[in-house]
């Protein structure tokens, strides 16, 4: 063993008490779905964790009806302070069951336990705690003296941060007085189903939260359901386009958190060692399965070689492997399909003439893995500089002046995130002013907080999640009337 070899330190799975199969959580209890069941596998072992039900169109209708009844009879009539107390309860139960949720998430998603334990699940609890306090203070949200809840919210979340995305959706919706039907991604349903149990433990009134599992067809049935008042979606830009088109001409309020191709800009006066860590957290956090990833590195030309050298040296020390091992930095790619997409785009990058470097780490035999990869000699026209790869692949481009950095950063139909690394605050603020992105991290990257609004410009979607702005996505302002403008 050299000093860089660590003995295995796997987190125990004995904390989990999973059922061999799960139904749909509708009206406060688990019921059978009308479709066939399907397996949720661990992407690191390819073994089945549990099986879940596929919700049919009829199941979607049942869930929306349950949410409607709960909205009409219970949740919309309850005082804000009582609603808030349910959310505080949920936050506390999430904290109590943190380790269990972290283990389940790592198994189901493939992300390292270090991240689920230290980032995902603590943020889930924080999200519910933050919005719990809003429930009886909606008149202070900046929407007039008497803002109104919308009704039934249909919510569709992705597989990259399964429980955290659930919290981003459910916490503000419930605080504002709406009821929800939520569908987790088909590859990562586990923690949403555990969350259904948490709702039971919190004695949340039946039908306020309904969790249905399934794939694209189930989601499409939710979007097309005539009795939803709100649609919130986090996922790919192509699906976001379909949703926006389906809901054109309706009164359904829509929030879309879609793709990105974030630029991480490194000026030559930056604290380079910190910037290296920031670049890594920007694109290799969560295997690069992050819509706001800093997947385009824009580095000032005179420090290009130094930055790339240091980055490669540092990346070579990252440990890829068992997501449940506490020393693991890079976990498994979430699915075979995603691995194929990453592989395809990386091959395209090589074909287009960019220079590929991949970390020389060992790849386990079972499961889906991709070594951290850096492309240099990338041109702005290359597909790896334009398309979202959603994997641990960084494209490095250079610039000479701040103006060029801004122009290159903004040269994208997306506009979700950006990073700026410089020790000069005046330059940071001037560049931040001109970047067309919804979230800008300066001398840091990939930080999330329930108090901080998150969401994109342009084809990264619309609406904000988090903070006071995120609450507005689930309310109509006081002077809103049916058929009026906003």
């Amino acid at each position, binding site marked *: 063993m050299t000093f860089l070899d660590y003995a295995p330190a796997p987190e125990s799975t004995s904390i989990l008490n999973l059922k061999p199969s799960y139904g749909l959580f509708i009206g406060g209890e688990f019921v059978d779905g009308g479709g066939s069941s399907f397996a949720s596998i661990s992407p690191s072992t390819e073994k089945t964790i549990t099986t879940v039900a596929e919700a049919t169109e009829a199941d979607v209708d049942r869930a929306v009806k349950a949410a409607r009844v709960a909205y009409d009879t219970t949740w919309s009539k309850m005082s804000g302070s009582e609603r808030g107390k349910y959310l505080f309860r949920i936050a506390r139960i999430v904290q109590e069951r943190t380790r269990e949720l972290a283990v389940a998430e790592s198994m189901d998603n493939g992300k390292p336990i270090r991240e689920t334990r230290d980032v995902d699940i603590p943020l889930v609890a924080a999200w519910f705690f933050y919005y719990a306090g809003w429930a009886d203070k909606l008149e202070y949200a*900046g929407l007039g003296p008497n803002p109104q809840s919308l009704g039934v919210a249909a919510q569709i979340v992705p597989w990259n941060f399964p429980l955290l995305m659930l919290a981003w959706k459910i916490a503000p919706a419930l605080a504002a007085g709406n009821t929800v039907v939520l569908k987790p991604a088909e590859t990562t349903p586990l923690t949403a189903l555990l969350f259904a149990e948490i709702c039971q433990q919190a004695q949340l009134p039946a039908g306020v939260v309904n969790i249905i599992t399934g794939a694209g067809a189930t989601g499409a049935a939710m979007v097309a359901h005539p009795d939803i008042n709100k649609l919130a979606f986090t996922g790919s830009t192509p699906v976001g386009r379909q949703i*926006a088109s389906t809901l054109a*001409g309706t009164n359904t309020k829509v929030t879309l958190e879609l793709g990105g191709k974030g630029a991480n800009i490194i000026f030559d006066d930056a604290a380079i060692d910190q910037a290296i860590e920031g670049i890594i957290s920007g694109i290799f956090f969560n295997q690069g399965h992050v819509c706001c990833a800093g997947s385009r590195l824009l580095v000032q030309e005179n420090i290009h070689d130094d930055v790339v050298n240091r980055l490669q040296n540092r990346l070579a020390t990252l440990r890829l492997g068992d997501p449940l091992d506490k020393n693991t930095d890079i976990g498994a790619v979430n699915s075979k399909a995603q691995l194929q997409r990453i592989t395809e785009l990386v091959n395209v990058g090589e074909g287009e003439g960019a220079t590929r470097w991949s970390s020389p780490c060992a790849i386990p035999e079972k499961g889906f893995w991709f070594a951290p990869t850096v492309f240099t000699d990338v041109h702005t026209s290359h597909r790896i500089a334009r398309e979202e790869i959603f994997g641990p692949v960084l494209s490095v481009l250079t610039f000479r002046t701040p103006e060029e950095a801004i122009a290159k950063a903004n040269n994208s139909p997306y506009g979700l995130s950006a990073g700026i690394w410089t020790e000069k605050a005046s330059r940071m603020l001037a560049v931040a002013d*001109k970047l067309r992105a919804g979230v800008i991290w*300066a001398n*840091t990257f990939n930080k999330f907080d329930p108090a901080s*609004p998150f969401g994109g410009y*342009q084809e990264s979607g619309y609406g904000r999640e988090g903070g006071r702005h995120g609450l507005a996505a689930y309310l109509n*302002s006081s002077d809103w009337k049916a058929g009026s403008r*906003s």
Partner: protein
Amino acid sequence: MTRLSVAKTYKLYIGGKFPRSESGHTYEVTTPQGAFLANASLASRKDARDAVVAARSAFPGYAGLTSYNRGQILYRIAEVLEGRRDQFVQEILESEGVGAGPAGKQVDEAIDVWVWYAGFADKYAQIVGNGNPVSGPYFNLSTPDPTGVVVAVSPQGLTGTSLLGISAVLAPIITSGNTAVVLSHFSQPRSAISFAEVLATSDVPSGVVNILTGDPAVIMPWMASHADVNALDLAGGSDGDWVAWQQAAAETLKRVVPPTTGIPGRSLDAITAFVETKTVWHTKALG
């Protein structure tokens, strides 16, 4: 002997210039009784695309102005409009079949709309933005940022609203720093083009506002699918195929405000419909 009056040629307003439609097409504008008033330019797809190019070119400069400066630009519009009040009243009397009282009231209300939004330019960010108390050593601030190029349809169909309609739709769009392509009232376009003369002789930079006279049903499908347009205000779209426009806009995920009944009222919501929230994080450290 009576003097023969000099009639005005009504043209488009694109990039600070007054071109005829590149298509060569015009359409007849009449009084409600059907008497000839003017041949207005019938804007084509190409004119609309030219207008988007002008609006896009003007965007970085206009969005980069200080809020105080933008407020003064909007106020200057009100000043110049006030000075030409009689001309607008006269045009409305001829075109819209209303009496002197309602015509004067419409012009006064339009002027006041510009004053109202002028005063909001350097304040709305304080109302819709805020600092965020995140759990960590970070400075974190959310501020509004203009969405980009907005294409708007002025209220149609109604009579007695042509100047007030275009003002009520346009003012909130440019208050925050967006640039605009706006379609005038189709059958009563004269106020809109005279208003373009107000813009051209006030302090509005060229290309910030572009005005097209023509049929929304012909122009809007191109605008809805145009990849360099960020948002649509379909205020006057209710008689058109606006759902199809909204569907086409989904392809590039444009922000879309649906049609309204009547003239949109003054509101903060009208400004925030076309702004993005930008959140900036920065580390805090003593050393």
